């Protein structure tokens, strides 16, 4: 699986969304991406990519696209 596929899979699993909805996804834009969904997603991303987000990035991870930029900071090219 590519990094993009892994990244997408975690969104699909943790936020219960379909692949075609990913692009415009924003924090609190849908009911499943609430604080609990967010923490699940962050924890899973850390586990799967073996990284540890700093506290600011946990909060700045505000959309599907923004998340890609943040992942880059941790050496994960999506």
């Amino acid at each position, binding site marked *: 699986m590519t990094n993009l596929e892994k990244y997408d899979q975690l969104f699909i699993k943790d936020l219960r969304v379909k692949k075609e909805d990913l692009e415009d996804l924003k924090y609190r834009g849908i009911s499943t991406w609430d604080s609990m969904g967010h*923490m699940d997603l962050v924890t899973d991303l850390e586990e799967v990519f073996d990284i540890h987000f700093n506290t600011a990035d946990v909060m700045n991870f505000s959309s599907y696209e923004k998340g890609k930029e943040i992942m880059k900071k941790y050496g994960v090219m999506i």
Partner: protein
Amino acid sequence: MLLFEKEKIYGDRILAVDDKDRKVTYDQLDSFSGELYSKVGGKKLIFILCENTIESMFGYLGCLKTGIVPLMLESRIHPSLLNSLIREYHPAFLYVPETCIEKAEASEVIWQFGSYCLCRRNEKLLPALYSELSLLLTTSGSTGSPKLVRQSSGNIDANGKSIASYLEIDANERPITTLPMNYTYGLSIINSHVLMGCTLLITKYGVLEPAFWDFARKNRASSIAGVPYTYQILKRIGFMKMDLPDLKSMTQAGGKLPSSLHKEFALYAKRTNRKFIVMYGQTEATARMGYLPADKSLEKCGSMGIAIPGGRFWLEDEQGNEVIEPDIPGELVYQGKNVTLGYACCKDDLIKQDEWRGVLHTGDIASRDSEGYYFITGRKKRFIKVSGSRVNLDEVERLLKEQYEGIDFACVGTDDNLTIYTDCSSPDAGKDILDYLYRVTGIGRAAAVRYRNKIPKNESGKTLYQELETTADNRMECK
């Protein structure tokens, strides 16, 4: 109500400021209330779909002040659950955010106040309301259970006054909203601070958004409140290293905080010269029954404390006798003026008077140490908490059985960990059930489904939950 007695004195003081920098005064609440009452036209039942906005808070306070009886519901409530509550209770009005106006079916917008609409329903069978009834809250909101708690103005006044006293709230306090207004803990913060003429900071942002912290800093938030889950998040986002110069206190309720987290925040508070106050309560007691004084938060870590001013705790054994000796578990019983009137399960119950007469059997099992501090050790009733809110396990079963005819279910669990047993062996059943549950109730993350070829029952057909509990501990495959 005592809550509004000083409103005239507070006058042009700021009652609330929101994240769009809008400000409202105590005087404005007064004129809003008058207008709301004239539109509603008397003591009637109204459903409020809550958000953390000034409009929502005004709706709530305006009702309390004028005797209109609101049922507080989350604005995200699933339409089918809302409609079943409407069918059961026949409210005269709905007060809803414009953004969820489609949920107000078969009604007419008669007044718009900011982002909220007052909608009149064409309802001929209005419920009769007990004169002292002031407020209705759900017991297990997410499952759409029709069971409500009936609170009186006396309950709300007594609890607000007690909370303001033990938290030493004065007019300089500036609490920030972190909890919804359909949740008793969220309301208790509003009540106790409005009583003292404070300014509330109202925001729809949550602690995971930088905008929340910008708002908190800019408006000098002095206190923050959270359920156990909030404190887990606060820890993860580096709250303890944040620069929050005006923050003086943190309160916690809505379930037992893990002792390790309790200790970490108690240490943080001590280090930074702040107060951390662990509290205990239930909707059935308006909100608050117990608190652990801040100066005991380290010494009595893991305890939920002592009874609030004006209240009394004791323990009862299974025969109903008082447990006198320390360190012996028993059911926690509370007595105080904030014990609510009782439950309502249908429209006709809204005329009922005070059924509980100041005494509440909490359903929680606790023990008391030799110095009088209480520790919750278990629970008698069949419910768990999911992110601080109560979820009745029998209600979840009922929902699932209604949706999936002919399939058997049994739910067990601990806080933030619901296990659903089913006798349906289809490979997609787990995902399907969780999707349905999530869609309707918002519960899903904390839930898991397990297959059993037969749900264990006794001879009279009652589910043997204990047999299931022993195997439910491990997190499972179709989560």
